[in-house]
């Protein structure tokens, strides 16, 4: 029969009020958990992808657009650059690898990326984002390797054929190429943008567009004659060389170099940073309101059971024990609210994670115990305890004789 048990019994005795108070805490905590987890996870995954390549070199324009289009397959490329830039990059002393990519077509909205077979052997940080689940890599023109999500969404299997659509945006009556790709391999799910990409030899893209340009006299914005590529993904001998090489390339070539990780961090700071701050502020506001509901709920409960407190005092309970038992009630409510909120946050993250997996190809874990999250939950617990102080003080000041005498 500890104070913990006594406090719990009083909470249990008013189940509905307690459940509603816990729910209000859980809503605030759930929002905070969701925002922090999603921010941590998306930033981590974006940065992980951004770290894979030290530089992206493409047509002059917006560097963020260049990075999003070539590393994350999210935006329209900035244009094409001459292939001799690729050769020049490969000749630079600290360039360990330079992978050309050529884009221009899609299949059911999934982007087709023409590149070199070497990229399929690239293992950034020991990971294997291009590992095969089945089949083999392309060996001849018009052979394709598809990402796990492409296979899942399209139902394509090894040996199946498909026709690509010209352009990046799916519109009715889009210009479809006559030539067919044959699926020769399916990538293992990596939780990266590769899951929703289709890879093939760069020659396939060039051939298709050379053919396409012959048919359309006016040519096209995304034509790929053999002397052009969309971008070059560059791996340097050391990440420390990124800034130096970016500046050198921007100075000496008719192209633009961008550092993926830097662009992504800028994106987070400028756009998502503000969104995160706003959502977190809303989360904390909900928690403050929850703390107020704990305060009001407990205060009303104390007023209703003044006689019970007086009885306990008559039985020998000290003022400290009465104060402590009420504070423990606040602790229970807050703790259960945090636990329920954590569960709610995980559900939201799991649901949003599924959406992001489909939209971005990023597989997010629903539970991430970041230092920010631990600090936030500690702050919520502290707020709940602070909310318990006023009712506990009210209980502490119990006038035993008066409260026992009241009918």
């Amino acid at each position: 029969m500890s104070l913990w048990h006594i406090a719990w019994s009083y909470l249990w005795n008013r189940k509905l009020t307690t459940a509603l108070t816990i729910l209000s805490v859980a809503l605030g905590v759930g929002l905070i958990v969701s925002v922090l987890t999603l921010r941590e996870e998306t930033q981590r995954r974006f940065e992980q992808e951004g770290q894979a390549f030290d530089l992206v070199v493409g047509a002059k324009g917006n560097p963020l657009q260049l990075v999003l289009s070539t590393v994350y397959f999210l935006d329209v490329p900035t244009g094409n650059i001459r292939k001799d830039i690729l050769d020049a990059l490969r000749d630079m002393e600290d360039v360990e690898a330079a992978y050309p990519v050529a884009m221009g077509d899609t299949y059911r909205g999934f982007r087709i990326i023409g590149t070199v077979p070497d990229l399929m052997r690239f293992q950034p940080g020991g990971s294997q984002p291009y590992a095969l689940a089945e089949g083999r890599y392309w060996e001849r023109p018009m052979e394709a390797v598809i990402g796990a999500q492409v296979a899942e969404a399209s139902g394509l299997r090894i040996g199946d054929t498909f026709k690509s659509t010209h352009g990046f945006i799916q519109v009715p009556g889009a210009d479809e190429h006559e030539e067919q790709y044959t699926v020769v391999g399916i990538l293992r799910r990596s939780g990266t943008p590769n899951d929703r990409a289709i890879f093939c030899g760069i020659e396939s893209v060039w051939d298709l567009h050379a053919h396409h340009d012959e048919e359309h006299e006016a040519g096209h914005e995304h034509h790929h004659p053999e002397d052009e590529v969309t971008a070059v993904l560059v791996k340097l001998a050391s990440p420390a060389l990124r800034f130096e090489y970016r500046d050198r390339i921007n100075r000496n070539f008719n192209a633009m170099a961008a550092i993926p990780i830097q662009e992504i961090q800028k994106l987070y700071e400028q756009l998502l940073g503000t969104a995160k701050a706003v959502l977190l502020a809303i989360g904390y506001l909900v928690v403050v309101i929850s703390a107020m509901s704990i305060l009001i709920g407990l205060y009303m409960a104390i007023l209703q059971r003044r006689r019970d407190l007086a009885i306990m005092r008559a039985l020998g309970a000290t003022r400290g024990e009465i104060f402590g038992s009420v504070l423990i009630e606040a602790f229970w409510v807050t703790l259960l609210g945090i636990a329920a909120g954590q569960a709610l946050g995980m559900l939201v993250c799991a649901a949003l994670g599924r959406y992001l997996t489909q939209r971005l190809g990023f597989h997010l874990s629903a539970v991430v115990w970041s230092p920010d999250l631990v600090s936030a939950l500690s702050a919520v617990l502290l707020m709940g305890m602070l909310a318990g102080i006023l009712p506990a003080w009210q209980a502490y000041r119990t006038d035993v004789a008066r409260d026992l005498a009241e009918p």
Partner: protein
Amino acid sequence: MVTLKNVTRRLGPGVMFHCPDFHADAGARVALWGPSGCGKSTLLNLISGLLRPDAGEIIVDGVDIAKLSEAQLDGFRGERFGFIFQTFNLLAPFTALQNVMIGMRFADVVPPREWRDRAEFMLRRVGLEHRLHARPGTLSVGERQRVAIARALVNRPRVIAADEPTGSLDPKSAAAVMDLLLELCEEERVTLLLVTHDRALADRLPSQFSCHDLVKEAES
């Protein structure tokens, strides 16, 4: 056992409680009787330390409780006193057994490992062995007062402070509860101070203390 000398307490604007002299021996059973508002409950509250006197001495079991600190008084009350109220004052969220155990939880007299056995013993003693896990809301008023008696006696107190203990009971239940209370006080050799406005009930106890002149208009 219990002695009051010149105890005064201001009850409100122009209203003063004054008890010049009161004494009850150990094991005595005294009825504090008088009409409503005469000050008998105030006297009981002062003796049991629920109220502090403005002046005078209150000696209980050799200790002047007026001189005890708040924390000392809490401990003293828990150890030496058992309370029985007109409205039973059981704690609604707890079972009969738990209500009796709570009496021991705050008093610090019985070791925790003995709480359950002692509480069960007391409930058996008041005839409620079949209602150990019943909550107050499911007990009859007579049963509730029996639980209250068990709780009051569970710490083997020196004094039972009973304020109109039969006031909410029908005559038959009241008689049964009084019989039980007197029997247990005799058995446990505990001093019983019983507040009542009922002269017939007061006459059932060996001693009576009239409270008619305890509350007076304050002298200007």
